[in-house]
Structures are given as structure tokens and as C-alpha cells.
């Protein structure tokens, strides 16, 4: 099997060009799907039996929570590839993922908290999912803070890569421990939040929104990655044609 396509992909000028070409496709497709999912979720989907129209927050909360974790894993894998095979492009990809993932984590926390108010009566509840998202936000912030603390971009890349790998190994442990911790005290009130009996008609907009968010992530990473490639490239030759 020829690996030339892989090596070509890792070459910055080639990647720069490809990303520039595919980004608009990601962008427009994601816009279409997000708009479709929004209409479907707010208008077409039937109201929930218990939560009424309030449950529609699910259509933005769940996809952002999903993206927050997806972005972290992509970031960690990219960082690992960069560290082990010394591919600068992989480090650049990890750097591109971080702010996007962090913003989704913040959104998941905010929407989760807002959803909690009518459902549990308080703006914050230490349940397993929200607490895990909060810890994930801390991991993102730590990663970005570490990156920012170095002037030397190579050291920033490699040190944050080690941190990302240590973090991703910890994520399952954190999830398990938080889950276990949250079951120790069952809330007295019946949580309407827990498992709305969800039928297919309600799930479709959820999947469309997730697909839309994924494509949006692809767009945002492509654009940021192009910037990161330029920042890392010292050889002016191919830049003359590109810039």
C-alpha cells in the first residue's frame, strides 16, 4: 500500500491548499444542516409529554456536549501523533481544536444549567454530566494556558501534547469517578430531566444537529489549521505562491 498520500497530506503546503478547498464545503453543508435541525427541533418535533416545549433545549445541549468530548479526543490524538511521529501539522491541528472544543464545553455547561432551572428548580446541580463537563472545561483551559505560557512554539507544541495525552487517559477515570460520586446521593425530587421517553420523531433533529455541528467543527478546524500552518512555516518559498 502506497503511503505517499499520507506523506503528502502531512506536507504543509499541500495541506494548506486542500484545507482551503474543502473548508467552504464543510461550511455551507454545516449551515444547511444546523438550520434544518433548528427548524425541525423548534417547530416540527412534538412537545415532550413531561417537559413540554422546554425539552427542545436538548437539541443544542446534547450536540454541544458531544462536540466538547469529540474535540478533546481529536485534539489528544493529533497531539499524540505529533509527539510520536514528530509531525508539525499534527501539533497544529491539536492547537486548532482547543478553542473550538472549549467553546462547545462552555455552551454545554450554559445550556445544561439553563435547562436545569425549570426542570430541577436550581441554576446548578452537581449531577454527573454537568460536573464532568465542568472538569473537561478545566482540562481545556489548562491545555490552552500551558500552550500560552511558552514563547518557544516547539516547546509549547510538545509540552501541551504530553498534557493532552495525560488528560485523555484521565478522562475515562474522571467520568467513572464523577458518575460514582453522583449516585451517592439521589435527589429527593423526581427529575423530569433524567430520561424523557424519547421516540424517533424527537431524535431526528438531534442527529441532524450533531451532523451539522460535526461539519461545523470540520470547517472551523480547517480555517484555524491553515492559520497555524502559516504560523509554523519558516520557509518562505511556498508561501510566496500561497499568500
Amino acid at each position: 500500500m502506497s503511503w505517499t498520500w499520507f506523506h503528502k497530506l502531512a506536507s504543509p503546503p499541500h495541506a494548506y491548499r486542500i484545507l482551503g478547498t474543502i473548508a467552504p464545503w464543510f461550511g455551507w453543508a454545516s449551515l444547511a444542516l444546523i438550520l434544518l435541525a433548528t427548524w425541525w427541533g423548534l417547530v416540527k418535533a412534538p412537545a415532550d409529554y413531561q417537559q413540554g416545549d422546554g425539552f427542545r433545549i436538548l437539541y443544542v445541549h446534547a450536540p454541544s456536549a458531544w462536540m466538547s468530548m469529540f474535540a478533546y479526543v481529536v485534539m489528544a490524538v493529533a497531539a499524540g501523533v505529533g509527539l510520536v511521529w514528530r509531525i508539525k501539522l499534527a501539533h497544529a491541528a491539536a492547537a486548532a481544536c482547543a478553542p473550538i472544543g472549549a467553546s462547545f464545553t462552555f455552551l454545554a455547561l450554559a445550556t445544561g444549567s439553563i435547562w436545569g432551572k425549570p426542570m430541577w428548580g436550581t441554576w446548578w446541580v452537581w449531577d454527573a454530566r454537568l460536573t464532568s463537563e465542568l472538569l473537561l472545561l478545566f482540562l481545556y483551559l489548562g491545555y490552552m494556558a500551558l500552550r500560552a505560557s511558552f514563547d518557544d512554539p516547539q516547546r509549547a507544541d510538545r509540552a501541551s501534547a504530553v498534557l493532552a495525552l495525560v488528560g485523555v487517559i484521565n478522562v475515562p477515570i474522571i467520568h467513572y469517578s464523577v458518575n460514582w460520586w453522583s449516585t451517592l446521593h439521589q435527589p429527593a425530587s423526581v427529575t423530569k430531566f433524567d430520561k424523557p421517553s424519547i421516540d424517533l420523531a424527537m431524535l431526528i433533529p438531534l442527529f441532524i444537529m450533531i451532523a451539522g455541528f460535526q461539519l461545523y467543527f470540520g470547517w472551523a478546524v480547517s480555517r484555524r489549521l491553515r492559520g497555524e500552518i502559516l504560523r509554523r512555516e519558516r520557509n518562505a518559498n511556498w508561501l510566496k505562491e500561497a499568500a
Partner: protein
Amino acid sequence: MDLQKFFEMGGYAGYVWTSYGLTALILLWNWWAARRSEAEAQTAAKRRNELALERSS
């Protein structure tokens, strides 16, 4: 489709619209920030290019 009822969201208007509003905000921020990050890198690269050309000529 009653527009009034749509905006009221069965009494949950504040919560639902704030959530969707925040989502739009975050998506817009990502759109703006990604484009800005790329543009800044492009201008910086161009400047580096010009300086390199000046030095070599």
C-alpha cells in the same frame, strides 16, 4: 402555526430562546475567531515574505 404560541414555547420561552441564542453566539464566535486567526496568520506571513524579499534583493 400560531406564531405567538411558537415564541412562548409553552411557558419555557426564556429558557429555550436563551439557550438557542447562546448557541448562535458560540457558533458566530467560532466563525469570527477562526477567520480572524487565519487572516492574522496570513498578514504575518505576507510581512515575513516581504521582509525576506527585501533582505535578499
